[in-house]
């Protein structure tokens, strides 16, 4: 009997193809929008997360803090209050740290012969390459024995911009500073890495810390300190060890900032999740509108088929079989529309993902939810028309012209 009702529902859906198609369209667009938005969002947040955790989630950043900002005044960066001495002390007293480096950082123009480009100049300890997992493609990284020497390691894009495929190793490049040009010999080029959290190594050049301090920055202070813990579980311990040290030094927690990779990651995930939910919700509204469209069509269909309902009742159809038949119609419509919507959504997501270079993540749970929601919409918006059909008075229904 269910099968017969199903066949009958299909037949009546097929008998009005244009109308069925149009009412399906609403649901299809809704489902496609939800799928596209959610899978793009998930893909985006996955790739951001992956990029951050590729640094290892046991990285900790220590930066100068911000003060003020109360009573409507803008917060001011404290300026460079950290120095190399802090790095040494932390290395000594913070047992959870495996490695630490001061960082001097600024934007400068870099020259090779006639060509120039802007690079992030980084003065760092050699341990940075290990900590940030930066691999050298050509030449070698600098070592502790290179401290004070005029050597430089180039990021992938800087090397490409200045040398255009030539081998930079052994060549001299110049960095423009406030006091004139400083020359450095290229000893290595990094592999392409992509944006990391605080900077993009591809657009950076790396100098030994002392070299950078004397030749370019002319300061005893450091821009930031990057530390790495022995293991991931020690991140929290390390953060409090560093905090202990810095608080003793400054007696003011606003003077410095300690951010762990883990903390950034969890904040980011939260933000992304909220964003995804919001966008998905907005797309979901179109699903709701589609559902109302289905209800509208089903109500028209019930009215149109009033006489048919009367006839069926007269020959023995029960209320529940009439209800079931109309309900099946709306569920079939939304189910088919949902499947088409999923395919369309996946297609759009992949297309857009390729355009903006985001890997798309279509999880089974998204598909299940989309299917569930579209069937739910069919059920929800189909119930009222179907109920109305089943409750029609057979005598009135038979008289209906």
């Amino acid at each position, binding site marked *: *009997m269910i099968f*017969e009702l199903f066949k009958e529902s299909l*037949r*009546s859906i097929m*008998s009005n193809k244009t109308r069925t198609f149009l009412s399906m369209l609403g649901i299809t667009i809704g489902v496609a929008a939800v799928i596209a938005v959610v899978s793009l969002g998930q893909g985006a947040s996955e790739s951001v997360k992956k990029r951050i955790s590729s640094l290892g989630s046991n990285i900790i950043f220590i930066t100068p803090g911000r003060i003020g900002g109360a009573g409507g005044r803008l917060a001011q960066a404290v300026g460079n209050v950290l120095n190399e001495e802090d790095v040494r002390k932390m290395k000594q007293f913070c047992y959870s740290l495996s490695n630490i480096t001061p960082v001097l950082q600024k934007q400068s123009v870099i020259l090779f012969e006639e060509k120039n480009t802007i690079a992030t100049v980084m003065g760092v300890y050699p341990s940075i390459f290990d900590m940030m997992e930066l691999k050298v493609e050509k030449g070698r990284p600098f070592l502790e024995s290179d401290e004070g020497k005029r050597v430089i390691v180039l990021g992938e894009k800087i090397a490409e911009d200045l040398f255009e495929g030539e081998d930079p190793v052994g060549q001299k490049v110049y960095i423009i500073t406030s006091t004139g040009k400083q020359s450095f010999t290229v000893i290595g080029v990094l592999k392409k890495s992509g944006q990391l959290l605080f900077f993009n190594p591809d657009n950076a050049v790396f100098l030994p810390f002392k070299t950078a301090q004397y030749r370019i920055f002319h300061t005893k202070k450091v821009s930031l300190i990057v530390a790495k813990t022995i293991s991931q579980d020690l991140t929290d311990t390390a953060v409090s060890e560093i905090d202990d040290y810095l608080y003793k030094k400054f007696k003011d927690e606003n003077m410095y900032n300690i951010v762990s990779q883990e903390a950034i990651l969890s904040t980011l995930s939260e933000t992304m999740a909220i964003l995804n939910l919001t966008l998905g919700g907005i797309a979901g509204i179109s699903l709701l509108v589609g559902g109302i469209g289905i209800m509208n069509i089903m109500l028209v269909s019930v009215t149109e088929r009033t*006489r*048919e309902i*009367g*006839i*069926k*009742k*007269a*020959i*023995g*159809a*029960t*209320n*529940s*079989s009439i209800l079931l038949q109309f309900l099946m119609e709306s569920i079939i419509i939304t189910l088919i529309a949902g499947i088409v919507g999923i395919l369309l959504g996946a297609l759009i997501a992949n297309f857009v993902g390729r355009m903006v270079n985001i890997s798309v993540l279509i999880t089974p749970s998204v598909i299940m939810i989309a299917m569930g929601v579209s069937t739910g919409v069919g059920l929800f918006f189909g119930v009222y028309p179907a109920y109305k059909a089943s409750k029609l*008075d*057979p*005598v009135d229904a*038979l008289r209906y012209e």
Partner: protein
Amino acid sequence: MVVLENVTKIYKMGSEEIKALDDLSLEIRDGEILVVMGPSGSGKSTFLHLVGCLDRPTSGKILIDGKDISNLRERELARIRNRTIGFVFQQFNLLPRLTALENVELPMIYAGIPKRKRVERAKKLLEMVGLSDRMKHRPSQLSGGQQQRVAIARALANDPKIILADEPTGNLDTKSGEVVINILRDLNRKGLTIVIVTHDPDITIIAHRVIHLKDGKIIKEEVRV
């Protein structure tokens, strides 16, 4: 056997109450052909709807095989319409999207009869009304007389005890009407009870009993032999 005891049916039209049937008592005997005549508005259709379990009386009792249908649930009424009663309408009331065969199958679907058995019986019934060559046709491809014969085959699908016909010849030409009347008479000879509601005095030829309704009351009853 159908018994009506003091059946009254009142319709409300706005604030006005219309008494379609007024304290009507009647017994429809097994195996008879009962013709109900009367002008429009006399309560003929209401009578048929009540006996056909499409409606319930405002007061009074309607017994079908001893069961009072005024207290039955919707589901049980549907079952009686499906198994015990067969309807034939003036407008034929076939489903336009279905073929003749599928139209005849429909009541059997509601009765839960399996496909093979359904088709077999539907074919036999269509043969019986002389439409074995029209089974795959849709109602729009059939003449009025043919449609009415499909409707009769459909009414017989679940082997009912009683056929209720509402102006069965009302939309037919004389010749087709005669064919339909003859089929009804043949069915009666096989033991079916037939109730026909009509304006058409010609139908009374086959009647065993004719009652005349006016204002919801029986004003005349004739017994024929």
